[in-house]
């Protein structure tokens, strides 16, 4: 297997041992992107020049024996929700087409400081609103396992890029499942850290109390390395935690004997596809075989999670997206007077799903409805959080399917927004409770589509989560058919 097809952690070792150079890795990455992205449309734009300069600098550091760390020279790509100074950033929306941020998101700065080679910006559902990347204003991304299907969303481009081995690592954001669900649908690992673990400064906001930045990689160790590079307190984000950041990769292979896993009965009911259930239960047995205790638990308020989420998230979004008004940046419609300018700018710039959510959120906050909707939803949110607190008194992690189905066809859910919302049913609770969650591959359906299982951990206990994920992940990471025939 050529180096560029290796999972991130192995690739990182190869760089450190100088078996492969950053420049060579980058060229391989760019070559694969050129070969495949015409079909996949994972990327919105590439930063070839900057990447080459970064790779060159990395190569020089390696030559001097002064590598910055495990990510020095590793090609990575970023969901187009991260502000990258001097590089167009659109959040998948027409309203920001051509927008060039004058500053780097903190996560971007940290990646650069770690020597990461940023290859380009990845496709996403507009303003992170969606579960299939079909809401991108710039066209959908395809699933590398089946080009007629979606890779999930909203970080569909990130997931597809990693699964198609265009880059070994990528970053996305997760507000209601937008990292975990695509990871499951494309068969790679994807982590949403605890709320407050990673800075949101420079991450275009969707729902402020739910958004978190997280990594994708083929392997759990790769996810751990990526998380280590970006986690930690940021003075620019006063919702970030000052808790120290452990070395996430250090304890990965400690094993999981004695760890207790809770399997919530509410997550295995109606709507879950039998193939997905089968693969997840196999995953449970795998963990039991490695010494985990497994017990059934109850998270009784789970059925309310989607409704709660779609009030809180849309309310916050309706406010976060008010700044897109055509005054200081982004699209501005032709108009003779101000009100017209506002209304037309936003009508022209936003897609249908974004408009729907803005309206839903505005409605939920509006006079006469605030108590019944927003306030009530925040109370139910407390109940959902308490369910997990209670569960964690007797288990170390909660295990469930990540997505109720495998990858669905392009266009399949576009006519019914509610149907699309329901694909988040297993992922949304972790966002509402602020808990870390990871999806790892646990098999394939009879059609060859990947299936993922989800682990949800205690606040700031990504270490235990990663250990369990490491134990659960498959030994092999098969290549999608798109790549087969190219691998030696």
């Amino acid at each position, binding site marked *: 297997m050529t180096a560029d097809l290796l999972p991130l952690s192995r690739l990182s070792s190869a760089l450190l041992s100088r078996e492969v150079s950053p420049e060579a890795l980058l060229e391989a990455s760019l070559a694969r992107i050129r070969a495949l992205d015409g079909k996949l449309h994972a990327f919105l734009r590439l930063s070839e020049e900057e990447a080459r300069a970064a790779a060159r600098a990395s190569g020089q550091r390696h030559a001097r024996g002064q590598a910055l760390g495990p990510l020095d020279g590793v090609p990575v790509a970023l969901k187009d929700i991260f*502000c990258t100074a001097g590089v167009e950033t659109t959040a998948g929306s027409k309203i*920001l087409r051509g927008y060039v941020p004058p500053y780097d998101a903190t996560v971007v700065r940290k990646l650069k400081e770690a020597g990461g080679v940023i290859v380009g910006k990845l496709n996403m559902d507009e303003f992170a609103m969606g579960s299939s990347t079909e809401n991108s204003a710039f066209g959908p991304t395809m699933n590398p396992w089946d080009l007629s299907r979606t890779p999930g969303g909203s970080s569909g481009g990130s997931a597809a890029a990693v699964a198609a081995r265009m880059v070994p690592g990528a970053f996305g954001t997760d507000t209601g499942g937008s990292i975990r669900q695509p990871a499951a649908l494309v068969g790679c690992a994807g982590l949403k850290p605890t709320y407050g673990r990673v800075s949101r400064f420079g991450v275009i906001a969707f729902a402020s109390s739910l958004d978190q930045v997280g990594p994708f990689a083929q392997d759990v160790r790769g996810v751990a390395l990526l998380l280590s590079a970006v986690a930690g307190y940021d003075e620019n984000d006063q919702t970030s935690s000052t808790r120290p950041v452990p070395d996430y990769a250090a304890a990965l292979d400690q094993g999981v004997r004695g760890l207790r896993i809770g399997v919530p009965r509410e997550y295995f009911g109606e709507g879950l596809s039998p193939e997905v259930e089968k693969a997840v239960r196999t995953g449970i047995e795998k963990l039991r075989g490695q010494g985990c205790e497994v017990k059934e638990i109850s998270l009784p308020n789970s059925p309310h999670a989607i409704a709660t989420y779609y009030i809180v998230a849309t309310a916050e979004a309706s*406010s976060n997206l*008010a*700044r897109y008004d055509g*005054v200081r940046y982004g699209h501005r419609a032709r108009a003779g007077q101000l009100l017209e300018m506002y209304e037309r700018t936003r009508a022209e710039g936003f897609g249908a799903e974004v408009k729907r959510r803005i309206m839903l959120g505005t409605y939920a*906050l509006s006079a006469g409805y*605030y108590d019944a909707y927003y306030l009530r939803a925040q109370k139910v949110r407390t109940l959902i959080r308490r369910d997990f607190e209670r569960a964690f008194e007797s288990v170390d992690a909660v295990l469930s399917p990540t997505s109720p189905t495998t990858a669905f066809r392009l266009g399949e859910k576009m006519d019914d927004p509610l149907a699309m919302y329901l694909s988040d049913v297993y992922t949304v609770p972790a966002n509402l409770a602020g808990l870390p969650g990871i999806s790892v591959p646990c098999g394939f359906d009879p059609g060859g589509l990947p299936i993922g299982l989800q682990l949800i951990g205690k606040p700031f206990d990504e270490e235990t989560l990663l250990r369990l994920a490491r134990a659960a992940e498959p030994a092999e990471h098969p290549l999608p058919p798109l790549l087969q025939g190219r691998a030696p």
Partner: protein
Amino acid sequence: MSVADFEPVIGLEVHAQLLTRSKIFCGCSTRFGAAPNTQVCPVCLGLPGALPALNKAAVEMAIKAGKAFGCRIAERSIWARKNYFYPDLPKGYQISQYELPICSGGAVPVPGLRKVGLTRIHLEEDAGKNVHAGEGSEVDLNRSGVPLIEIVGEPELRSAEEASEYLKALRLTLLYLGINDGNLEEGSFRCDANVSVRRKGAQALGTRVELKNINSFRFVRQAIEHEIARQVEVLEGGGKVAQETRLFDSAQGVTRSMRSKEEANDYRYFPEPDLQPLLVSREWAESVRVPRLPQEVMDDLVAAGVPAADARTLVNDPRLVEVHRRVGGDPKRAALFVVGEFSRALNEKEADLAALKFDPALVREVWRLQDSSAISSTAAREVLAELIRTGEAPEAIVERKGLAQVSDAGALEAVVDAVIARNPAEVARYKGGKANLLGFFVGQAMKELKGKGNPGALNALFRKKLG
């Protein structure tokens, strides 16, 4: 029915910019007068991805205000988003406080009136400036994000006069606290008035009208008086007062309705998810030092024997109080200096309160020279004037200008004897009963001493020698 049958009910809302060095949610400078859009950053520009980072000093200043007015300081208060669209509001929402403000209750002591109750004080960010220009508007975001406290007064005021006095007292306290510069004209201190009227004796409140754009003390009274009269006229005519916002037109002296919007603003307040709840521990609140406030200073001066009018002059300008404090010594004498010599110098532009050229403590040096008869009281005034103007040390001034008074008994006696010897005719007339010739003798002695004789000592010596 006439105006006399109606009682006005007035409550004032003041927005005061806090004198922090940086903005409330970002590190941009708050310095006034910079070129447009030169004190901006991703946060106060409302760029995608930006987040607010709360400035500790803004909170401390709010705590200071709360303590000064006797408010309850909330241990936990909440930030809220007030959502509306306007070009000077870059995020499309203002970060403010709504349900749980940092301060509640409290009162403003108004001299000559009474304590006027406060409802609350809360922190928020200022918007930028929207300036109409030709076919459109220009938006300058330098001011976006400057910290404000909003001080909401209870509707306890009953006349435009009371409102004006309340505003003055409130403003003065903020100056004393050093948290606001009290500048109505420049807009760092803004006042809106809520005005309603009701029949005398009625319990229910009338419909409230909000008056905006009051940017001088004179306009405060004018606007409120006019609005009271307008409302009374409406009611007397059998009409109803509309609940609305009206702008004060200072040129015409009237209030005008702002064109009513299609629907009243629905601000859709909700707790700000990007900020922690604001926690102010009892220890923190206790540690915030509140300087002496106007009433306290007033009481101290009057107790020291300063005439009330002079005391009031001093108290009304905290910079004068500061000069007074730095002079030190006898508070009454120091007060007389400040309202006397020093104020004269200020009026004649020989001194600038913003940039003192002298150390006020040196005034006591001049007093010492005068009290020890080293210089006359006339000379003392001259020395003070020079001190204020140049900051030169008093003794050096006396030396340089030759203002030292001769008081040495031997020297004086020699001159006295000489004058007596030279003027036998006058001596005889004096001894014959012309007591007022004493002045002539002292004058002669002074001439010889080139004006530097100690007049009192000379007087005594002549009396002694002439009997």
